[in-house]
């Protein structure tokens, strides 16, 4: 395990414009139906199961010979997709578009890019600092 978990998490240098929020579109038919709901219901649906934290801590670890980073802990907006972390790591590692990056949770699985950071953190956070550990490699690492 790498060090640095107690240092202040760095804020990612990628835009927080909500473009990466982990939501899929809904059909127009269903959207129309939703607008007819009472305000309380709308609110309950929009907020149900949301994490009370706006940001969560992600601890990144190089594996299989990947380059270590100076910053190992990042605070990511909880509603963002996992894709944002992958983009962030690509940028920090200065990877070219043709170079691959493989990211894993718990040294077990590679999350789909549309999974939210919030859901992954909730289910797989570890340690006293309640961090989601993400391993990264430039070639597939966990069969």
């Amino acid at each position, binding site marked *: 395990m790498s060090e640095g978990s107690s240092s202040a998490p760095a804020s990612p240098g990628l835009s927080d414009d909500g473009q990466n929020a982990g939501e899929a579109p809904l059909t127009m038919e269903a*959207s129309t139906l*939703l607008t007819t709901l009472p305000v309380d219901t709308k609110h309950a649906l929009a907020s149900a199961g949301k994490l009370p934290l706006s940001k969560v801590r992600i601890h990144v670890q190089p594996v299989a010979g990947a380059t270590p980073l100076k910053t190992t802990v990042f605070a990511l907006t909880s509603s963002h997709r996992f894709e944002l972390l992958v983009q962030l790591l690509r940028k920090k590692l200065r990877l070219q578009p043709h170079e691959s990056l493989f990211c894993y949770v718990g040294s077990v699985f590679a999350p789909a890019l549309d999974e939210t950071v919030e859901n992954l953190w909730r289910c797989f956070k570890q340690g006293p600092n309640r961090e989601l550990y993400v391993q990264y490699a430039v070639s597939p690492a966990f069969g």
Partner: protein
Amino acid sequence: MSNRDTATWLRERVWHASIPLEIRLHKADSSSYDSDAYLVHFPRLSYLAFLLPELHTFFYNDLIYPDVSWADAWLEYDGVPLKWHYPLGLLHDLYSGAAPVSAHDTSEEKETPSWQLTVHFSKYPEDQLVRLDTDGKHLRDLFTNNVKEADYLRNGTGRTMMFLGKQESQDLWEGVRKHDFNLFHPIYTQLMNPKGVALRHVPVRLYLPHAADPQAEEEITPGSVRVVQELVPLNTSSRQPQTVGSALNSIMGGLFPNKRLALVAEPVLHGATLPLDASVEDLMRTSAYCDGWLHIAFALL
């Protein structure tokens, strides 16, 4: 029937459940004025991407650019591109607008009306869908990683899946691809009953619809589906078996203030309303999707 018989019966019912599809070619890709629709009964547990080579062959003579690869095709319903790693049953529960069947429904079993989808062969929605490849590698990776994540949740290590032999992993995937129960089931049973470790959590994903933030007064903007995933232990803190109601109540108490009564929305799985008193472990063993997850949609009351 004994419990074991009921479980086997349910498992097979779920495996064989299918949805009639009527797939038309999008007019922007069609050279003919009125091409035929492709009709198929497709398993709820399977993935739409498996249909693409056949759809390409079927619409070949109608395509403006027939030499396009089938891996450039994508499916859409009512403006929503359908995700490759969502099984058909989940997509139908989320988007078709069909009312779920409930246990109180005394009427005869009704035939599901066909779901009308559109296939596109151009303008791939890169920002919303993962790219496919003609070897089917990306689809398999998506599936395998979902199986691993479910395994990790179930036993806390993810080792059962990682220690499967090459042939067993292959059989699991081929079982899904060919929708072959005899290939699939023995490996799946190993995953559900890991040796030497206790089951800890049931892999559950909840798909909640909600309206878009009102921007214009008159115009209706598309809403969205938000996925909520949380640890669902087999038993509650008071050592009772976890039910659908107790799990929903602990994950989203605002929407499910009552463990026994749905007030705002009802959970839906495989086109049916889930009883709130059903045990989540029983559901996992009988009615999970091939990737081991209970993918639960919601119907508003």
